[in-house]
């Protein structure tokens, strides 16, 4: 059995700064893969920025912003095979897009319309989990259950720094370790849980330090470096596939946007740190890296951005074109075999609505 040692405190990086730190490379990522990854980043960035606008325009409800989390989401998902599953929290509401989920589905979810329902098996993306950390045991159970069936499927679950204080994280990580589940526990440490800083969240020196207590290796990466995120996740996925069990990844960044559209971070964040984070944000960093590598041109950048904007325009149009949901949907789908009383309730509702 491999000995699990405390995590290396330094943050893994691949992307350099064009000055003191040289750019690295990731084995197996040629120009095509790099561009595919870049497209995922721009897709998520465009989705996020447009969603804030749609919220301001009253076209979607309260929205949880993930600006500068795109590298953690796209980079980790890029390390998976299609058959592997993703278990997102609300911060990763749009991660299904990198699996081909229609933009209108995710926007419908934020519009509170049942067209925002999806079949997790269609994209191998579980439903968005709102209660913090509660998706972690689902991912662990899925990974454990898949391995028991002899299926080669890895589960990736994403959660924030605050989630590591929850019992669901503790119990999920405990099960993951004991069951040797092929799961990747991916923590977006953006240093804030709404207004609560990491220092008020835990006395642990790093979140990766927590992993050793579960007998799980913990690694730390720069969360705004998409290549470091990808590489660390790929190694974790390889461990999982090899039957070596779970890995905890702490991706460190700084939240450079409000928690959600209903939040005013100027009341609590360090504005200088926000400025720094905005300067080193993940999409721009990767873009500059690709330009230095000669993979990306101005024309291509414009083309990809325009394509993603068009996808968003079409997506919001589709979501808004959804006919009003039938009130009967209130009753459908709660049970496969519903109690008879629900039929009486539906009849009453139809009578009152005259429908």
């Amino acid at each position, binding site marked *: 059995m491999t000995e699990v040692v405390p995590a290396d405190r330094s943050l893994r990086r691949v992307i350099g700064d064009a000055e003191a730190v040289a750019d690295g490379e990731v084995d197996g990522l040629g120009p095509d893969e790099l561009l595919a990854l870049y497209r995922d980043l721009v897709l998520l960035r465009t989705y996020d920025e447009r969603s804030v606008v749609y919220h301001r325009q009253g076209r979607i409800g309260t929205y949880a912003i993930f600006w500068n989390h795109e590298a953690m989401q796209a980079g980790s998902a890029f390390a998976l095979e299609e058959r592997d599953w993703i278990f997102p929290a609300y911060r990763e509401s749009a991660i299904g897009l990198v699996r081909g989920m229609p933009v209108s589905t995710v926007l419908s979810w934020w519009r509170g319309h049942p067209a925002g329902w999806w079949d997790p098996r269609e994209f191998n993306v579980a439903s968005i989990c709102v209660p913090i950390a*509660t998706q972690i045991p689902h991912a662990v*159970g*899925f990974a454990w*259950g898949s391995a*028991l069936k002899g299926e080669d499927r890895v589960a990736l679950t994403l959660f924030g720094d605050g989630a590591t204080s929850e019992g669901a994280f503790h119990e*999920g990580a405990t099960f993951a370790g004991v069951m040797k589940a092929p799961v990747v526990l991916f923590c977006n440490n953006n240093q804030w849980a709404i207004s609560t800083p990491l220092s008020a969240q835990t006395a642990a020196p790093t979140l990766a330090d927590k992993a050793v207590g579960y007998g799980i290796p913990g690694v730390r990466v720069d969360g705004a470096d998409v290549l470091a995120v990808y590489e660390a996740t790929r190694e974790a996925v390889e461990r999982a596939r090899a039957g070596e069990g779970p890995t905890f990844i702490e991706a460190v960044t700084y939240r450079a946007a409000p928690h959600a559209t209903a939040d005013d971070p100027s009341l609590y964040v360090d504005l200088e740190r926000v400025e720094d984070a905005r300067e080193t944000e993940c999409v721009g960093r990767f873009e500059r890296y690709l330009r230095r590598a000669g993979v990306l041109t101005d024309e291509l950048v414009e083309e990809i951005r325009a394509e993603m904007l068009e996808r968003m325009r079409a997506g919001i149009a589709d979501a808004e074109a959804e006919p009003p949901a039938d009130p009967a949907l209130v009753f459908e789908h709660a*049970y496969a075999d*519903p109690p008879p009383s629900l039929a009486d309730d539906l009849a009453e509702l139809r009578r009152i609505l005259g429908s």
Partner: protein
Amino acid sequence: MTERFLVEAVNDALHVEMERDPTVLVMGEDVGRLGGVFRATAGLQERFGRERCVDTPLAEAGIVGTAVGLCMAGWRPVCEMQYDAFSYPGLDQLINHVGRYRWRTGGKMEFPLTIRMPYGGGVRAPELHDDSPEAYYVHTPGVKVAIPSTPADAKGLLAAAIRDPDPVVVLEPKLHYRTSKQEVPDGEHVVPLGEARIAREGSDVTLVAYGAMVPLCERAAEAVDGEASCEVLDIRSLKPLDEDALLASVAKTGRAVVVQEAPRVSGFAAELAAILAEKAIFDLRAPVLRVTGYDVPYPYWQIEDAYMPSVERVADAVRRVLAA
């Protein structure tokens, strides 16, 4: 047919259902090597292996939460909560996910998990081994609840729960695990959810109960024999509820006493009484009375008999509805 104690009937159901369906997986604290603290899962690990009868970490939210993921991977988990009051850490997963996940997928995925646990008082146990938590579970949309009172129903309702496409919580009256014994059908035996049972026929008063309160009501009916003819209706399935059987019995007797051992306020007896108020008021010749535990924490066992509904309290309620 084989004569079995109630807990043996539970064990038999697990053996039969695991044999019948290779995706049924039993998990919980001490369920494997030990066979469960009440021996409900005895022999399963030897028969079906450690992968299908899983000793889990001591983590109820982890048990229920990973069971959700196991469903997504194609399993039908049967989770044991070691005791009623120890199940509460799992309520987070139950309320937020077990009862909602099917709905959240627009009905595309099913979550056929079963949670079973011993419940109830009167067993001279330390604090927090005595609760009747059915109201929390019945109040959770998307979740069904069954509570057997006999060995045959303990087997049949558990089998129905395991086969049901929806999540089902089964509460087993631990007081009667090894005091109640009867002939139980061998092999496959299913008691459909949503069907009440007339445990005793009568014409003057309907005693409505489930679980450990059913045999208590039967004894109370004996105690008032000569004064009143009591019908005892065993609800068996709290959700789905057999309203027809409830209304039919009360239409016949015109009087109802609802008995539960859980605290009174917002308990399931209140739901049953409300249904009678809404749908049977013109059949009633007396107000519906409740006999319940009190609205206090379950007491230490030297005084627990004062808390538990008793034959005397049920008989008193019968006399009051007759005199009304």
